[in-house]
């Protein structure tokens, strides 16, 4: 090799070194291509990387060819000049470019006359193509082919390692963005969740999700997509959205998982995931669960040892030919806690699964959820990062003693009435109000909030605040606005105030300058004072 070329190769080595470590993969490749043009005294240089999912070569970096990257040119394997190099994994030389030996008009447009291309290989696996072109006719020598192959090795290595790094970062960002930033606030329920990434820093397809439905049901999802890295995180994101949408359509957990299964089998062939869907009915008294191959949750009743819930496991989603899915119903008394987890929590080297599950049951108690999550992670994972990602979600139905007052601020609009009713119903059920008291308070609070919606504000609107608190043996409900009530204009509204009065033991309507305060007092027991 001539001394001058050896010198230029050292320049390429320098380009792959730490000095340019801050460049992303595209910028790094452009830098390399500029050096290649100088080294071989050619006019254009282009890198195409293989998009493995579509099996197409994508123009990723170019030097001397304006706009080639922006056009997003994609070339199928085997087609044209670059496609042929990729298919044959051999260098290809074209001395005179014409319509028969190149596929895309982009090359002739730039007046390219001769081309030399080599495959980008990582241990015999193709990751892309590197080619150079000249405006004048050129006969490439064997030495030049050899030189370009040496450059290709460096380009392949840089592209591969950078791409892997970018994918790792993207997967971590994607996964973080897909996990709920904040869990919903549901009166009567305490929620906490933890996510512990694996020791190698990569990501897996573990996910959890907690959301409420318009019907007042509370859904808890925990799942694990088979596979790792960006692909698994990406599929996880789609499954999460699909599951939310299918839950919105209604049905029990088995039906919802059935729809998800169909979706995965059709749109994500070769993918498989375990998922557990648990749905609390609005009163929070019962939990409905269906498991698609996911480990069973642990349940602890107050002052009792925890045990695995008896939830039969049906086939994972994405597995064709499964039998009918089942939904299991479990009674959840006040104070009970349920802990959901992914298998990373219980799959430990040197410890059998049964022993791990036993440890988990020993760690779970019906107590505050945040400290429980911390305890479970400490006792089962320890201080060292786990070998696999771990996700856990702990849910506890508050006992009536632990239920604090509840506040809700919503726009004073008709659609909000239903949300208010759901929240009030849930809170009343949590504090153990008798059915008759629940019905009375729903009407009293319903009429008071309807008055705010209809009469408190002008077209600019405003909010209605509902505050509920327990003053044993009574419930005190306060409905507040910051407007001024117009006089009831119809017979119907007059009836509303009559209902409020009849459904409460004590009613106080205070029209102040800053707004109206309605205070409703009603006994928790079946019969009111009246």
């Amino acid at each position, binding site marked *: 090799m001539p001394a001058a070329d050896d010198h230029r190769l050292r320049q390429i080595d320098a380009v792959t070194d730490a000095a340019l470590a801050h460049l992303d993969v595209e910028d790094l490749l452009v830098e390399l291509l500029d050096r290649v043009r100088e080294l071989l005294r050619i006019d254009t240089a282009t890198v195409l990387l293989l998009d493995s999912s579509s099996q197409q070569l994508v123009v990723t970096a170019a030097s001397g060819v304006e706009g080639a990257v922006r056009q997003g040119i994609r070339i199928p394997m085997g087609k044209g000049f670059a496609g042929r190099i990729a298919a044959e994994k051999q260098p290809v030389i074209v001395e005179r470019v014409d319509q028969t030996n190149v596929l895309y008009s982009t090359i002739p447009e730039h007046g390219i006359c001769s081309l030399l291309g080599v495959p980008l290989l990582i241990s015999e696996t193709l990751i892309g193509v590197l080619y150079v072109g000249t405006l004048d006719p050129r006969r490439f020598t064997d030495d030049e082919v050899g030189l370009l192959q040496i450059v290709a090795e460096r380009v392949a290595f840089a592209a591969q390692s950078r791409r892997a790094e970018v994918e790792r970062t993207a997967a971590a960002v994607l996964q973080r963005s897909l996990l709920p930033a904040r869990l919903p606030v549901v009166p009567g329920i305490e929620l906490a969740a933890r996510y512990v990434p694996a020791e190698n820093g990569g990501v897996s397809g573990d996910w959890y999700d907690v959301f409420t439905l318009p019907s007042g049901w509370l859904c808890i999802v925990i799942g694990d997509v088979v596979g790792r890295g960006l692909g698994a995180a990406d599929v996880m994101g789609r499954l999460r959205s699909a599951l939310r949408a299918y839950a919105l359509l209604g049905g029990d957990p088995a039906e919802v998982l059935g729809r998800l299964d169909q979706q995965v089998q059709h749109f994500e062939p070769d993918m498989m995931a375990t998922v557990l869907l648990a749905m609390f009915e609005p009163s929070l008294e019962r939990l409905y669960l269906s498991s698609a191959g996911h480990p069973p949750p642990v349940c602890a009743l107050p002052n009792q040892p925890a045990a695995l819930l008896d939830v039969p496991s049906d086939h994972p989603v994405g597995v064709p030919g499964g039998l009918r899915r089942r939904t299991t119903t479990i009674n959840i008394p006040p104070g009970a806690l349920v802990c959901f987890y992914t298998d990373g929590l219980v799959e430990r080297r040197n410890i059998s699964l049964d022993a791990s599950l036993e440890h988990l049951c020993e760690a779970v108690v019906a107590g505050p959820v945040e400290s429980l999550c911390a305890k479970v992670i400490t006792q089962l994972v320890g201080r060292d990062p786990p070998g696999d990602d771990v996700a856990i979600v702990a849910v506890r139905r508050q006992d009536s003693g632990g239920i604090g007052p509840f506040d809700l601020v919503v726009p004073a609009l008709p659609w909000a009435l239903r949300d208010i009713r759901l929240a009030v119903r849930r809170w009343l059920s949590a504090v153990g109000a008798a059915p008759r008291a629940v019905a009375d308070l729903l009407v009293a609070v319903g009429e008071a909030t309807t008055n705010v919606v209809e009469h408190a504000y002008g077209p600019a609107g405003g909010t209605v605040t509902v505050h509920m608190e327990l003053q044993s043996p009574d419930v005190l409900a306060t409905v507040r606005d910051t407007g001024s009530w117009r006089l009831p204009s119809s017979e119907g509204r007059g*009836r509303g105030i009559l*209902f409020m009065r009849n459904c409460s033991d004590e009613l106080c309507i205070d029209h102040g300058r800053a707004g109206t305060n309605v205070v409703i007092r009603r006994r928790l027991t079946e019969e009111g004072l009246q």
Partner: protein
Amino acid sequence: MTAAKVETSAEDGSMHITLSGEIDLANAAVVEDEIRAAVSNQPTTVSVDLTDLTYMDSAGIRILFVLASRLQALRIVLELIVPLDSPTRRIVELSGFESLATLRPGSH
């Protein structure tokens, strides 16, 4: 959004309307329109079944009062089916509806 279902059936000169779901200010107008569209001047009796209605306040009661006064003018008998333990029994009792329609605890 509050949701209610209005289902109707007719037999031998009587018309049955079954209400389910919830009725409040948000959907009262829609429910009223649906009931109005369903009732013709043909039946001699109209029965409204509230058994599966889980919530109703003065917005729903107003619909029933308007319906009752229309039917009275048409000389059509109105019956309300409200079982004793149904969620809307109390509000119907409080409204004084008994003076306008027959209250029945069950459909048969």
